């Protein structure tokens, strides 16, 4: 579903479309490289890939200003890249290097960037929602017109903190934009195995939070929906929720043998690959040529390889600093 007219497009629109495509490609190629580096043992710990869900992060981020707050999950590489965090600092964090965005203290699940108001990847499912509510409470109490965008997955909807946060955000009319990435599985447990009611947008409405479901495989649909919702939140209209229906093409983490879903199901969703379909759309509209696509790919490849080189060359934090930053010095 796209709402953008096919004819009469201006150069600015074309440039924006290419930015969207570049943003999604950057996430895809970055993570494909991460997967390789994980096999090589350069990246350790858990690695939860966002591949397949890129349209959500890139589309949603178009609605946010640098002054807005972002709360994310353990599957946050895409959110961080779309927010403009440098791939160098993210790759270095995945390596565990001192130049990483969390100085090597966080790893894949815990990216932070205070300057960009990226308040972190939260790896206790649902645990970021109350924090987002509090960030928004501070903005409301001080009269700032900021939006707090809070990403979480369908798994979080089963947690009490989801329901508590819906209630409190609406009760106090706080400027939170809840962005539920519904990829149909909480690790290996399907939504219909864990929820008596699988309509997530409907759950938000039970708390009086306006909500709707959006095609999370269509970057333009995500952009349009988040812009509309964020404008209302920013104008003081209280919290909103978008259920972004998407799918992860890879396993839950790289340790996942994927016993809980069929290859056919994955293939069906891959036919709706947000990058392939958007690329095709731009080609059909003659907004993107082979040469143009190649240029995009090369640019992104350069960024990713630059990030890997940066991570490789970066120093480790000295072990003497082990106790640093537990509390203020």
């Amino acid at each position, binding site marked *: 579903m796209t709402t953008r007219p096919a004819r009469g497009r201006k150069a600015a629109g074309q440039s924006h479309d290419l930015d969207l495509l570049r943003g999604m490609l950057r996430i895809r190629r970055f993570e494909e490289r991460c997967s390789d580096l994980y096999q090589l043992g350069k990246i350790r710990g858990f690695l939860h890939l966002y591949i397949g869900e890129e349209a959500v992060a890139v589309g949603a981020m178009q609605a946010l200003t640098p002054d807005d*707050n972002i709360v994310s999950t353990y599957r946050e590489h895409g959110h961080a890249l779309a927010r403009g965090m440098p791939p160098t600092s993210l790759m270095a964090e995945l390596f565990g290097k001192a130049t*990483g*965005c*969390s*100085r*090597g*203290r*966080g790893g894949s699940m*815990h990216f*932070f*960037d*205070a300057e960009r108001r990226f*308040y*972190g990847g*939260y790896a*206790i499912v649902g*645990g970021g*929602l*109350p*924090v*987002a*509510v*509090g*960030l*928004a*409470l*501070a*903005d409301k*109490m*001080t009269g700032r017109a900021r939006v*707090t965008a809070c990403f979480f997955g369908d798994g979080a909807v089963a947690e*009490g*903190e989801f329901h*508590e*946060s819906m*209630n*409190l955000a609406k*009760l106090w009319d706080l400027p939170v934009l809840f962005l539920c990435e519904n990829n149909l599985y909480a690790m290996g447990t399907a939504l219909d195995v864990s929820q008596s009611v699988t309509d997530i947008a409907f759950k938000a409405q039970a708390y009086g939070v306006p909500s709707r479901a959006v095609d999370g495989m269509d970057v333009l649909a995500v952009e349009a929906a988040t812009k509309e919702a964020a404008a209302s939140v920013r104008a003081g209209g209280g919290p909103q929720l978008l259920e972004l229906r998407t799918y992860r093409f890879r396993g839950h983490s790289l340790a996942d043998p994927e016993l809980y879903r069929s290859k056919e199901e994955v293939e069906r969703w891959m036919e709706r690959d947000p990058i392939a379909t958007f690329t095709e759309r731009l080609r059909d509209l003659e907004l993107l040529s082979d040469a143009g696509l190649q240029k995009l790919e090369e640019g992104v490849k350069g960024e990713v390889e630059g990030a890997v080189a940066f991570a490789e060359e970066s120093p480790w934090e000295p072990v003497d600093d082990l106790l*640093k*930053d*537990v*509390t*203020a010095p």
Partner: protein
Amino acid sequence: MTYRESIRSALRDALRGDQRVFLMGEDVGRYGGAFAVSRGLLQEFGPDRVRDTPLMESTFLGAGIGAALNGMRPIVEIMTINFSMLAMDQVLNNAATLRYMSGGQLNVPLVVRMATGGGRQMGAQHSHSLEGWYAHIPGISVLAPATVADGRGMLLAALQEPDPVFIMEHATLYPMEGEVDEASGPCDIRKAAVRREGTHVSLITYGACLWKALAAAEQLAKKGIEAEVVDLRVLRPLDSETFLASVAKTRGAVVIEEAWRTGGLAAEVSAQIMENAFDVLDWPVQRVGGAEVPAPFAKQMEDASLPQIEDIVAVVEANLV
């Protein structure tokens, strides 16, 4: 002034003095606080700064974390420490962890107050002393004000800290009368305090047990035994220096707390004495702790489950002869 009024005076001064400060929790506003600590504050400061929350310990504590990250100075009240178990995910995984996990980029200047402890026949879901669980966690401070003056001074001091501070108020202390300068500012929250000097034994404790230890010391004095009473005050980070200095002087120690002995804070204090002062000890460190049972309701049973003055006296006499 009572302990309750002392804390209230600090809340009032903090709300008056700093627009970033607000209080939130269950029944802190219209009801006036489950223990009447915040009575009258809603009328003075309004519902924006004295916020009644729904019953959702995890989410309103988490919201306190978020507000603290975003420039505010929230004071979160949790009705009892047993209820705070519902918020432990936010305490441990977020409040205590964000500074470290973010490589020092974030800090959480959050103050959380809660009532703790037994002795009021409140049964097994309102009476426990779980301070030791909190004191186990790096990244936070844990305070146990035992005096009326500390009730005020510690709260004012906590509000100046850049990292989370948990204040454990023993529920039996709220009506206690004591001295406090109403104009006093923050007190020290790094050091333990010697509340009574003595030379024969160190009674090391905190919270409401301080008063039992002092009473035990009076009884022992009549028998010619001079006990030194150390009020830990700060349960994390422990001021080891003060209690080790006391033990170096008295050559014997009894550690007293309401909490269950297994894995308790007294075990930590005892271990530190073994590690650092073993050579000065005339007899093994002793502990007087709570019985290893869920808090019973009936008075005689609850009394038997908690450290009592005579228990402390008996332990000292049995070891000091």
